């Protein structure tokens, strides 16, 4: 049982982080489909920098900076060049997936997986079976709470939400929705970097091409399933992770009888089911996103 919970926390945490970034962007009125790309850039930057410099703080800083730069690029394309949000977001994802593969080839000469000598610090043996989890897992509830506090209980958060829900309301009091969306994307970028860092350096200490394998999109789905609320999105992310952990467990138990491809598809099927469920429950206003979302 403890193993299952550990596996569950381990696989859920990166999705929670990336979902938080999605929530912040969605509140400001951006459907951020670049999450997958940002996450893999975060993962790649962390491992490669540790490998090259041996410094974890530097690795995290590089990951955060690269994610900020890519987010700023997304903002520029969407808000200044007025490109379609969905296409631009998918472009960032493509850029991240392709760019990390290219970076591996350029630095190490092949696309083979890269190992790092160490990863993120662990919470320690004092916590028994949970000791192997990284500090980012422990930090996660704090950051979910913090995001909720900022988004739902500060004037800044209200203004951010107004930009997504009714940009004219923001403009009418002198808040620029365009600028606010830049802040939202820049605020979300470190979460994407941490999501990538946790995925690659939380327990594995390695990076391989395509290693996010759709977790960014799962985070995006969690934003919708969680009705754009930080806590809701975190719970949704864990729901997907739970399905994933169950899938792995099922593979061990029933792998000989049920096709393993089907069991591997479990988290994705859960995502689809979750989205169907959230549409069925017919949450008002936020499930389908703020009114003005994506309408540019």
């Amino acid at each position: 049982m403890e193993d299952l919970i550990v596996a569950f926390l381990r696989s859920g945490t990166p999705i929670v982080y990336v979902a938080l970034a999605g929530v912040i962007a969605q509140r400001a009125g951006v459907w951020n489909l670049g999450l997958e790309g940002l996450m893999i850039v975060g993962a790649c930057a962390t491992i490669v920098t540790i490998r090259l410099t041996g410094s974890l703080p530097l690795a995290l800083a590089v990951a955060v900076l690269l994610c900020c730069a890519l987010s700023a690029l997304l903002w520029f394309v969407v808000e200044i060049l007025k490109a379609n949000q969905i296409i631009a977001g998918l472009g960032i994802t493509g850029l991240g997936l392709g760019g990390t593969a290219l970076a591996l080839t350029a630095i190490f000469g092949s696309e083979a997986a890269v190992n790092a000598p160490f990863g993120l610090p662990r919470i320690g043996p004092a916590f028994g079976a949970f000791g192997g989890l990284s500090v980012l897992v422990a930090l996660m509830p704090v950051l979910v709470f913090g995001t909720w506090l900022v988004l739902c209980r500060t004037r800044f958060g209200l203004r951010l939400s107004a930009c997504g829900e009714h940009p004219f309301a923001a403009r009418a009091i002198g808040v620029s929705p365009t600028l606010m969306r830049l802040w939202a994307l820049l605020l979300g970028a470190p979460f994407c970097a941490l999501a990538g860092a946790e995925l690659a350096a939380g327990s594995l200490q390695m990076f391989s091409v395509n290693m996010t394998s759709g977790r960014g999109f799962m985070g995006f789905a969690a934003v919708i399933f969680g009705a754009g609320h930080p806590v809701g999105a975190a719970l949704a992310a864990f729901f997907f992770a739970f399905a994933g952990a169950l899938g792995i467990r099922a593979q061990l138990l029933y792998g000989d009888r049920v096709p393993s491809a089907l069991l591997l598809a479990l988290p994705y099927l859960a995502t689809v089911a979750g989205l169907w469920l959230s549409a069925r429950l017919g949450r008002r206003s936020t499930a389908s996103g703020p009114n003005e979302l994506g309408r540019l």
Partner: protein
Amino acid sequence: MAGPQPAGASAPALDAGNVTVRYGSFTALEGVSARFEPGLIHAIVGQNGAGKTTFARVAAGLVAPAQGDVLIFGEKVPPGDVLSARAAGVELVHQSFALPPSFTVAEVLQFVSPRRGIFSRKAIERHWQSWLNDIGIDLKADARIQDLPVESQQSAEIARAMVSDARLLILDEPTAVLAPEGIERLFARVRGLKARGVTVFLVLHKIREVLAVADTVTVLRGGRLVTGPVATVGLEPSALSGLIIGDSAGTIDAADRAALTGEGETTHASSTPPARRPGWAGALRIRRATVPGGPYGHGLHGVDLDVDEAEIVGIAGVEGNGQRDLVAAIAGLAPLTAGEIEIGAQRFARQGLAARRKAGLRIIPFERNVEGLSLTSSLWENWCAARLVGRSLFSPAGPRALRRDADAAFQAWDVRYRSPDQPAGSLSGGNAQKVILAREIDAEARLIVAAQPTRGLDIGATAAVWNALRGARDRGAGVLIISSDLDELFDICDKVVVLASGRSVGSFTPPYDIRAVGDAMIAAGGHGQEDLAP
């Protein structure tokens, strides 16, 4: 509440110097110069498209003028800078409200206020509730904007504007969304603000309202200043309506003029309908129609409605009281859960729009640019779409002939256009509406549903729409017109039915009594005061 500062007391509240605003090639305001004294209620009037809203937005810093300056209480405000305008004490209450629908009243007030830091929901609700009580606005701080009736949403907007101690409060067409009784309450509030030393600008388009509340009036026409500000004391309504209309539309009859500018207290249908002919069975008969309410409205609850041939029936009511559901039900877009609908003595249950059109139903929809026309399609395509509906998929249609017919129809309807191939989006509102009229009003029309047919149109185009509907009526069609403008309904309708909270609550015939109709509009409780009290 801060009154006018001693230093600024003598300076004009607003001093506009030669303000010109252009949107692309369109000039919305042209060289407008006017000075407004502080501490008064100023009305700004004009037709649709006269530049009233643009003027209000320039004053509030939402629109940057191409040239000219704006001085607020003697202080020059940088053009198009909302923050500076707000700092100078200007607040604008928008026509279509600018509040995020999912916010609570307390969140809205917090969102505009200078209060920073982390808050708890309870604390801000307590703080803003006591603040609301202090300034005498009857609202619950924990109510969500989307759950509030229109009048309360407007109160929330006014409260929002008062958060930053507005010294100059601009209300953009505040009466357009209110029932007559709500208008009186609004005016009482405006007078209360004046007593506190706030200068109030009201963008209005009814002379009756101007004379009831304003100290001065300013008339705009075609983006230019016609007169003002002039004192309203001793002003003749007919002189003012002449200034608003100008000589651009000289052929409008007196009753229509009065209705267009809201001159009088009561108005009458200006022509009498032709006598009933044998064989007429009614253009529309609705019995106990019920449609479930959705996110956008009340739905319908047992509505009864009759429209005879050669009769214009008006649906009065505050917006959002089931008007859209009614049109959707008649069109077959919203299935009835109970009750029945007959169009031209033919009963319809599940049949779609094509079958209903065949029975003579014609619709002039609410949203001209979304439901009425395909803006990117050519004019002739827009025009012929209706006659292709219901034909077999492989029936031949000759574009050349259709284009020629469309051309002839547009000529007959006096549409101003260059070519039938130009996209519908390139026409002005009035001409676009005439394209829809040309399509919808034909010899086979038995029931014409006109939803807000004159919204946003200038006076000439409005009169043209009225005459078209009267013409259709005189040829024997039943006309159902939905409007939130009582002057319009009273002028052209043979009967007015009031819709409130999705129920038909009263039926009136000429001579109309604006009070009685107004009472019915709020009678069903959908917008009564009892909803607003904490």
